């Protein structure tokens, strides 16, 4: 039984060099902090990091009956650090689907790049930086809107108004009514929300 424990893995090379071939009885995957800290990755992600580590991904030419996978966290914490799946589909690593897999890896990397850019743009749009501190633009606008809602329509004394000679009229003359500007602010919040919605595709992923 030649393939009971031995899986044949091929690493294609560039520059017309012959492909590298290895018969493995155990795949040892180091689980990076990126995978273990996120808490959303699984054993296949760790395997991808090992088998597709090179710029040119490797593939499995011959699948063994028994597959041993050792998972060790690079942050030296206990356990595998990624979700262990009761069923492990390895079609993506098969020689027969190699071309499709390479194409999909490229496509997925492209999507991740777009998502990263969108995320960056969302942060830029949704925050205001003042004195080195970042504030959420939406929260500031909403707080301002609430404040304006409370004082709109009320009277206030305009201290900057020029006093005329007749001092007997006192403060009554300098009293003014707050203009209704919350509508303008509401429009600003609405447009900010719309812009954020159009750029927040990554939230769904």
């Amino acid at each position, binding site marked *: 039984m030649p393939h009971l424990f031995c899986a044949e893995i091929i690493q294609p090379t560039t520059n017309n060099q012959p492909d590298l071939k290895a018969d493995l009885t155990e795949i040892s995957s180091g689980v990076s902090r990126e995978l273990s800290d996120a808490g959303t990755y699984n054993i296949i992600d760790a395997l991808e990091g090992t088998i597709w580590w090179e710029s040119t991904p490797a593939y499995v030419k011959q699948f*063994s009956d028994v597959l041993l996978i050792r998972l*060790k966290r690079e942050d030296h914490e206990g356990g595998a650090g990624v979700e262990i799946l009761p069923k492990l589909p390895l079609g993506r690593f098969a020689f027969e689907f190699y071309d499709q897999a390479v194409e999909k890896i490229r496509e997925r990397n492209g999507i991740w790049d777009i998502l990263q850019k969108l995320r960056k743009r969302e942060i830029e749009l949704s925050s205001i930086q003042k004195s080195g501190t970042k504030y959420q633009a939406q929260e500031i606008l909403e707080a301002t809107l609430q404040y304006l809602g409370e004082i709109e329509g009320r009277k206030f004394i305009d201290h900057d108004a020029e006093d005329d000679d007749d001092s007997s009229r006192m403060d009554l003359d300098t009293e003014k009514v707050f203009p209704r500007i919350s509508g303008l602010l509401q429009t600003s919040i609405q447009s900010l929300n719309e812009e954020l919605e159009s750029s927040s595709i990554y939230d769904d992923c």
Partner: protein
Amino acid sequence: MEERLRTMMDFPTSITRQTPVEGASTSISTTISLVYDLRGVVVDNNLFYFSQWEHITNPYKRKLRWYKADFSGIPDITSVDEGDVLSVARDRGSQGVLTIYIRDDVPENVEKVLPPDYLRVASHHTLTNFRNLSRKIMRSFKRS
């Protein structure tokens, strides 16, 4: 985009390969599964988890039964849930964990259960009777 990312790496679960037959121009096709089942986890020198198929021949009742083998003190083997195994494998094991997967089309050793005696006797008699009958028919053909 969410759906696209989720299904992007969905590949077929089996492949069919042609194997040439020695001394013949034909080849036989073999289908190989690309899906593996988790069958064991080695957490450290003292703690192992392993599994055994239950009702393997019945596709509706087939189920993996998991056991925990703890050798840290008095050797102890107890039945556990699969969920516990997956949780322990994720979080425990100071030197990482070793997972053992077996391809799901690898034949299992199944203990053959023979039918009850009375059925075996009956089937033996039926076979003997059939043989005798066919011999008689052959003889009658030869005579004619």
